[in-house]
């Protein structure tokens, strides 16, 4: 993906250059997750999953990050309680600097947001997690550093749930003229 973003930066430079132009970079993280890994189940033998599998998460280089205006991270997971008792499901998004090797060890990384959902047996629902990146947020500073890592963890407290990842997207808005001193 890093190389794909380098290609993006080349085209970005050619596409438009003006003080009123905002460049919106949309990265469809879900498409980088193999289809067979987008659905599955959590139970008492496996109570959590990480997306991506690697605890270091997914590195996202941001060309011209100094020009960052704002951004948004969106995640959506649909869930069905297939067990026999009530289930509590937590979804958290974590970010860290590009050299972080484990986004989940509380060492240099941050929890950006967490959402929870309780499902009764047979009940379905979805977890929608949206994070706005604004100046002053630690997550905003991580993005503005030029390269960051991002990952998500889905955790179960209960019997068994079926999950499907439906959306995982990072949207960054950049204004290249902000780079002009």
């Amino acid at each position: 993906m890093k190389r794909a973003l380098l290609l993006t930066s080349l085209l970005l430079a050619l596409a438009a250059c003006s003080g009123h132009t905002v460049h919106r970079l949309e990265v469809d993280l879900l498409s980088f997750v193999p289809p067979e890994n987008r659905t599955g189940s959590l139970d008492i033998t496996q109570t959590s999953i990480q997306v991506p599998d690697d605890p270091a998460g997914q590195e996202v280089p941001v060309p011209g990050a100094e020009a960052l205006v704002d951004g948004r991270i969106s995640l959506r997971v649909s869930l069905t309680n297939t067990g026999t008792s009530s289930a509590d499901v937590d979804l958290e998004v974590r970010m860290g600097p590009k050299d972080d090797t484990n986004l989940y060890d509380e060492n240099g990384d941050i929890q950006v947001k967490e959402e929870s959902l309780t499902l009764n047996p047979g009940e379905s629902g979805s977890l929608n997690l949206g994070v706005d990146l604004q100046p002053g947020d630690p997550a905003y500073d991580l993005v503005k550093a030029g390269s960051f890592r991002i990952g998500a963890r889905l955790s179960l407290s209960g019997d068994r749930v079926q999950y499907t990842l439906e959306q995982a997207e990072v949207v960054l808005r950049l204004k290249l003229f902000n780079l002009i001193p």
Partner: protein
Amino acid sequence: MKKTLCFIVAGLLSLGLAQGVRSLGMGGVALPGPAHAGANPAYAAFPDTWGREGLQLPIGLLRLLPLFPETSPLAYFTDPQAFRNSFDLLSFYDQITHVHSFLLNPARSPDEVVFRVSANGLSITDGSGRNLIPSFQTGASPEKPQALIPAPILGIALDLGPGTYLSFGAFAGTQGVRLSPSRELAQALAGGSLDVCKSQNPSPCVLEGAGAFSAGLSLALGFAAPLAEVPGLGKVYVGIRGEGFYGLGYAEGRALARPTFDQDGNVSGVSYEYRYFVSYPDYLEGSFGLGAGGMGYGLRGDAGVAVDGGRWALGLGVRNLLGFAEWRGLEVQVQDGTETRTPTTKRSDFSSPEFFVNGAYRMEGTDLLVAADARFGSVAPAFHLGLEYPLGPVALRTGIGYEGGLRFGVGMGLNLEALALDLALTTHEAPLVGGTVYGIALAVSF
């Protein structure tokens, strides 16, 4: 760096070669007469009854004042914040290449450019979901030098006797500029899938940019004269011209970028390949220091014929009927980071003619003037059709044309005997983003 910037600005200005305001009001049509002796040498002896033009004012330069921060780089020095919020490189380019028109709505970069990256590919759209595929071309092919150099800036002409003239001056101009994606890249960007780019190795998805610029001193010797009146036809004029140049600088460049893929079909990087050729006289080596000292020269022959039939006129000019240009300098090729520098001599084709046909007809009774022209051959084809209707001291004009894009013009003239004013509303196709750009042009004559 300053010299490079000077060359760039001179090159941009040369793209906006002046057309008279009367002509602009008639959709850009070229009326028969001495104003177009450059395109048809026979017009050097033609009466100036059809194509009379006033002094065109470069009112487009007004847009370089900080008052217009969207087109003025100077705004950075007077109001940096306004510059950061408003300056638009595309608007600036559009205005400086149409310096004789004050553009009412210069080409504007999109407010939002959306790059969507997924494992399957990449798409570039504006904020409305419309695909943005960079594609742009102006002038002739920038692949090789041409004997057909730009017209001299402030050239000086000397009358050497019956029908013979000598003209000389300095020239500087862009031969051509092109930015274009390959068919496969356009398809991939439009569809958002890179599958078509993986069909071959190296990838057929290529973004190409190319341009050429030349500068030097030119000297032309021409002859134009009326022949005897041909019964039933009119007065026939013929002209020939030989023009040579001594080159002061030539730069030509071409860059290609294409994606590369790993064995799983994922994008693994971008392969760059570019080459450029630079030539200037040996004695300028101390100033430029690029190791590209050499020499440039060229010679070409033009010919033309024109007929004045009283109420009508017709002309055919051929430039660069035979020609030759040679530049000795340095070619630098860079492929995947490896640079190769080779002393090279670049030569033009021996014959690369450019044809120019134009004519005008004044209808009996109404005095309505109908004019048309066409240019084709070694340049991108262009044609224009214009009308002028005189109403006492006022003349109303309109016309359409195709010149890299559709254009039309509306104009009027006011002849007050001591002073004549020509005003035109002009249009042209906005570069890169498409759409129509409107402008106002003004000329005066006393």
